[in-house]
């Protein structure tokens, strides 16, 4: 603060004005650069997906494909079990979102409203669970699901994703519930509403944006996961798209074209959410952080 104060004694309005215009140009340049760097790997992914297999391995590299073709997209569906993967991924992601929120909303409500001994311990555990490297869990998790006879089923994925995404969802919802004025609940309860009714009819609608935000985040992180699916599934009965992606790598070649096409397909839900639910996505990614 002291520096700012000393500077204040000798203002230089003229120079500041010139810097403003040069600054604006610089800002635009930096902005353009940021956008270009963000976009170009994705453009390359897309370009690879519309090349013929011959064009992919051409030397020198044709940056713009010689001819655009949809054959890679066709082969993704005809030569690989991609439809099964898509279907599994959708079911797992949607079911996980539902299950996570059925469990997380009451839990977050309890943690923010009820005087629970050991709450600090629970918060600590939530943080630890967020920190676990999934590799450490792979083999024991496999053993757990083997014991329940759930290996290579969609349920194994839904349950493990539910557990893995719960800490973040609870953390996120906690912030939103704490913003709900307690007086509203008290009014409802003095009207004779029980705990569950208060939660369902009063609190849940008030934190709808929070639920939406954490639903979007949960969905996309589940959709994108590779390691859990790789560990817990072994057939197209339960394999998901990211696992399917690794199937384009076979012993006698990597099908870069089809793999890129599948990669583009995988990115579609992200683009949809970014376009139509931008607000929720931003909320989901930032709420916990900004509130601390």
């Amino acid at each position, binding site marked *: 603060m002291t520096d700012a104060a000393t500077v204040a004694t000798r203002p230089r309005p003229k120079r500041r004005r010139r810097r403003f215009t040069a600054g604006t140009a610089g800002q635009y340049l930096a902005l353009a650069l940021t956008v270009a760097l963000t976009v170009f790997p994705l453009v390359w992914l897309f370009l690879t997906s519309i090349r013929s297999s011959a064009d992919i391995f051409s030397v020198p590299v044709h940056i713009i494909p010689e001819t655009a073709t949809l054959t890679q997209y066709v082969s993704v569906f005809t030569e690989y079990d991609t439809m099964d993967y898509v279907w599994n991924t959708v079911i797992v992601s949607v079911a996980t979102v539902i299950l996570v929120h059925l469990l997380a909303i009451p839990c977050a409500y309890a943690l923010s409203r009820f005087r629970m001994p050991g709450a600090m311990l629970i918060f600590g555990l939530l943080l630890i669970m967020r920190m676990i490297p999934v590799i450490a869990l792979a083999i024991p998790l496999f053993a757990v699901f083997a*014991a329940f006879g759930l290996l290579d089923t969609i349920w194994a994925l839904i349950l493990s994703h539910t557990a893995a995404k719960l800490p973040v969802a609870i953390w996120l919802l906690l912030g939103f519930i704490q913003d709900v004025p307690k007086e509203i609940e008290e009014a409802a309860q003095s009207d004779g509403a029980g705990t569950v009714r208060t939660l369902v009819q009063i609190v849940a609608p008030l934190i709808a944006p929070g639920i939406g935000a954490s639903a979007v985040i949960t969905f996309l992180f589940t959709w994108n996961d590779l390691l859990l699916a790789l560990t817990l599934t072994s057939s197209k009965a339960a394999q998901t798209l990211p696992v399917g992606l690794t199937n384009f790598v076979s012993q006698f070649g990597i099908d870069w074209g089809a793999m890129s096409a599948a990669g583009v397909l995988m990115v579609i839900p992200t683009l949809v959410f970014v376009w139509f639910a931008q607000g929720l996505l931003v909320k989901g990614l930032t709420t916990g952080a900004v509130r601390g």
Partner: protein
Amino acid sequence: MSASLSRRKFLAASAAVTAGSLAAPWVARAQANEITALLITGGPLYPKYWEKIVQDFTAKTGIKVRYDLLEFTPLTSKVVTLSAARSSQYDVYSTHTAQIDSYFNHFAPLNSYFSESELAEFYPVAVKYLSDPKTGNLAAIPRNMDARVQYYRSDVYQEKGLKPAETWEDLVDVGLKLTGNGHYGLVVPGQGDPAQRTFSDLLWQAGGDWVDQANKPAFNSEAGIKALTFYRDLIQKHKIVPPDAVGYQWNENSTELSSGTVYANFDWPGAFATLSNPETSRIVGKWSTAPYIRDKAAISCAISHAMALNGQSGRKEPAVEFIKYTVGPEAQRLQFEQFTNFPSSQVIAKEVIAAAKGPQATWLQQLETTIANGKEWPKLAGFSKVCTLMFSAIEQALTDQVSPSDSLNQAATEAEEIMRRAGAYD
């Protein structure tokens, strides 16, 4: 053993026994005349092959087979996971010589299911390296042989008046003449297991071996250092191999040739079918095969894809029947017809070589020679972990991070310690 019993043990902290018994055997829900199998796939032809094998087997025996297919790498990690959990989900596994030493105590020995004469039909090199050297237990039965020959661009070679390399020196000479304009004379893989395979072949060719008489590491001998130096120089000094090869495994090794960028490589039998197929190859009709290169000796690896019986399986008899069928004459012939997999049975191999004509016959004879002279690295306790160490040691030398001799000496010291700890010298 029931699930609850094993949990109590866990609580009693005798975790040793509990390592995997959590995966209680009551998962097995299939009917008595049904078995389950986890089988290998690779490329679009494999699923049809297994479908046919399973159908024929069921028609013949009445035993149903439920199976899942995985590519080689995911298959390997899946079998590791299943074994760690002592799972009985699958009765039968596709497996391979490479990591077999890890499963000596997990796969059920097959010795009692095969007679002496039946076993003698298979290539001895395959049976030897699928057996536990300590107990003599046969951990898996070979389904087809994996060995390599040289594949090269006959059109380009002819145009430049070159002959395929026979010796190490030839390899460099020919490679130098072919490299330029974005094209390379040769590609060898340089990452992970494929790098170790390549080093291993060169080690044997230079007259060295992995271990000495006492099973102590000997790959850091003069021959070993010469082999690794030669391998590194192909990439770093002569630059006849694409620089990215240090990150390539088999698939990219194959792709470099089939896409037309590189003019020669050493590849597995499956490459013959891949290169002949216009959907996977841009050089159909423009390539030919030659024997593997030699230095002091003409030795390279002869390993096998194999079938194993899960030690936890509750349906061993029908499972063995299926295993026997997959290595039987019908299955071996079909494999060869469908994707030119080289038979593991010497009898069938003779049969298909006799029936083959033209370039295919030449190729099969070259392969047969490789297999007859073939070797594999030792199946000592802890060697799978030594392999992990070797990947890194070889890659470090190939990328000039460490000199070949330093890298091998360091690895030899650590390898001995790993094997000692694993009980290889007990």
